[in-house]
């Protein structure tokens, strides 16, 4: 076994013995020294997940979150040195983590927070000027076939749980009061958009979220609007335009 393999092997395995071949100048047991590395690997990865998932952590408490995130980190360490992208897959892990089974909304909440990370770091894009949108209306017949390029930071999430209300409650002064008022039977959909240098999170109708999702995957405007459940189309388009979320519209 190579030195590196032996050293790496035990870092993510709490029960594995300390690798052979280590020494200390004073002859002390190197286990304690090796534990510094072992600890730092897991703690630093858990810290990264905690920074990306503050509401998930608040919901379950720090101790539970760190234990759950530690499990994830040992099973699924990052594949890239770019830690901003560490945590894709965490929500799926949460969904299958038995001790969290009593909180059925938790995985979607983690998913929502992950989308916020993606939106935060996504590419920048200029919005399509409203005058150009207006100009496109001149050719009314072409409108159903337009394909919309949405801002690279835009994300939508449809959940069977009130994830937007849960998330928003944790941003409010009176989190306990806001949490007590949530209807846990309600399905909710979230829209995440860049707002200046911040990411704004809005609750939208499930039909509007489905419409935006279809636009994002490349469906033409007419088909996307028609396939979604009933929703307020003018208000939804207004929302997208107002947040600079439409970068381009082209006939295909």
């Amino acid at each position, binding site marked *: 076994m190579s030195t590196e393999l032996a050293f790496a092997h035990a870092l993510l395995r709490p029960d594995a013995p300390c690798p052979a071949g280590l020494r200390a100048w004073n002859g002390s047991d190197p286990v304690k020294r090796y534990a510094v590395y072992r600890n730092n690997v897991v703690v630093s990865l858990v810290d*990264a997940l905690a920074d990306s998932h503050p509401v998930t952590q608040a919901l379950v408490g720090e101790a539970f979150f760190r234990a759950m995130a530690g499990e994830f980190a040992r099973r699924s360490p990052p594949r890239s040195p770019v830690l901003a992208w560490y945590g894709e897959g965490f929500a799926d892990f949460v969904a299958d983590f038995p001790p*969290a089974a009593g*909180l059925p909304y938790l995985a979607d909440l983690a998913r929502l927070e992950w989308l916020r990370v993606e939106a935060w770091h996504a590419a920048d894009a200029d919005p399509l000027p409203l005058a150009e949108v207006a100009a496109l*209306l001149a050719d009314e017949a072409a409108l159903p076939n337009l394909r919309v390029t949405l801002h690279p930071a835009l994300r939508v999430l449809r959940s069977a749980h009130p994830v937007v209300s849960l998330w928003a409650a944790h941003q409010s002064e009176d989190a306990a009061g806001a949490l007590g008022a949530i209807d846990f039977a309600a399905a909710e959909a979230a829209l995440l958009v860049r707002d200046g240098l911040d990411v704004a999170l*809005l609750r939208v109708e499930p039909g509007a979220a489905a419409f935006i999702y279809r636009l994002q995957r490349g469906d033409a405007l007419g088909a996307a609007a028609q396939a979604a459940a009933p929703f307020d189309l003018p208000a939804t388009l207004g929302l997208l335009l107002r947040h600079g979320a439409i970068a381009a519209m082209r006939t295909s």
Partner: protein
Amino acid sequence: MNKTVTAASLALAFGAALSLAAAPAAAQDKMADKEKCYGVALKGKNDCKAGAGTSCAGTSKIDYQGNAWSMVPKGTCEKTASPTSPTGHGQLMAFKEKKV
């Protein structure tokens, strides 16, 4: 499924959307934006620090893995009324060393 979305209805919708988008901020506040919400800023996650040694939270104690599988959520979830929980709160289920 929506009623048939025609070219004319799309034109109408866009027309209305443009006037919404061009409306002053005060008027916009009355629309869906009242639900708009922001969270805390994200930090840079890569650094070159070495943690806090062997004694800080989340250490690799030998029994740590077992603890992870027998813990119960104790956060703001306890303030929610959960319909799926027999206690009416975040369900407090303990699992002992059970792996999926």
